[in-house]
């Protein structure tokens, strides 16, 4: 088998994943991209979406990230995500509850509230997350 790629995914609160993998597919703002070992140095911003870790052709792990950066150096791939969760840790029901909670907050805010934008972003993120889990 070919060389392994060192991949680490860190969020502000913790290191979500770090290890040797074959192949990582990540959602760049200009389109999804795959990284294998010996990729050229490359940096891009990420949009909210799914990061897939592959061994051979098999998806080993799915991680959902909320914005951030990918940085490919000779040392490996580093993804700095603002929020990141492993999809296998999630249950669709709990996300539903969270969506409802944020929606309630959104309704409670006035139409001119400065928090509206942030709350709407939260709702969008959680809905995208729910779709990713149910897919």
């Amino acid at each position, binding site marked *: 088998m070919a060389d392994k790629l060192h991949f680490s995914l860190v969020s*502000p609160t913790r290191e979500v994943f770090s290890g040797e993998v074959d192949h990582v597919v990540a959602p760049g703002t200009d389109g999804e991209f795959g990284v294998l070992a010996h990729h050229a*140095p490359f940096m891009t911003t990420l949009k909210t979406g799914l990061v897939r870790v592959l061994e051979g052709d098999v998806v080993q792990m799915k991680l959902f990230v909320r914005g951030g950066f990918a940085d490919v*150096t000779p040392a490996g791939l580093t993804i700095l995500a603002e929020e990141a969760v492993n999809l296998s840790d999630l249950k669709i029901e709990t996300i539903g509850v969270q969506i409802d909670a944020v929606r309630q907050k959104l309704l409670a805010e006035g139409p001119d509230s400065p928090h509206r934008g942030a709350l709407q972003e939260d709702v969008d993120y959680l809905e995208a997350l729910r779709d990713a889990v149910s897919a």
Partner: protein
Amino acid sequence: MASLKELKNRIGSVKSTQKITKAKQMVAAAKLRRAQEAADAAKPYARRMANVVANLTSAMGEGASGPKLLSGSGSDQTHLLVIMTAERGLCGGFNANTAKRARLTIEALQADGKTVKIITVGKKGREALKSDYASLFVDHVDLSEAKDKYTPFAIGLGKDLSARFEAGEFDVATLIFSEFKNVMTQAPTALQLIPAEAPADADTVDLNGSIYLYEPGEAEILEDLLPRYLNTLVLSAMLENAAGEQAASMTAMDNATRNAGELIDSLTLKYNRARQAQITKELIEIISGAEAL
């Protein structure tokens, strides 16, 4: 000489104080462990973020007109100080040291004829500086509801800073917080936030002659990255501050417990002496009474 009864009461009261300080010390020790773990967990992200910023800025090259957050507003007339302290006292010199550091900075800036604005984070620093600098306060961040979840507060403050900078409210922002060196030492530190400075100790990556590819472009990435870098700096400062507060509180309460112990020993000695003196006195009275017969 205090009476026996008084001494006994004092010993009792010191003992209950000691129990409280002992309990506070243990609570602080438990909280310290959690706060330290949180601070350590945040380190990989902050370090990598710093590396990315360092790489990007070195790739941009000197003199390039990067985003304003990096290059500054071209002036350094108005300074914004973000002064970060704890919400609670009973942690020794922790808040006082940070406040002292803040005072020195404010005085130095004012002596240079700069305009100073202050955002305080944490109640204690605000209280300490209120008497002299209340007119400079522009905002306050209340962390009493944070309950160990600092991320939303850090992002909020970071965004607020970016917005104020965009609005031209200040030229230079400096964060004053307590750096958590270890459990015994917390050093008040000033860290320049805006214009952002790439950390000197970041490891720049050796690309073996190949060229970095940027998507969409360097400028766009930097534009997106810097506000996040700012948030990250604020968050790690908050986490270090929280760990430092607990460490300082633990040390202070440990000292208090020991002092109370010493006080109890010396009071007990006094009490025993007084008791013995009274017994001796009574004996002498009885003996001299018997001899007189």
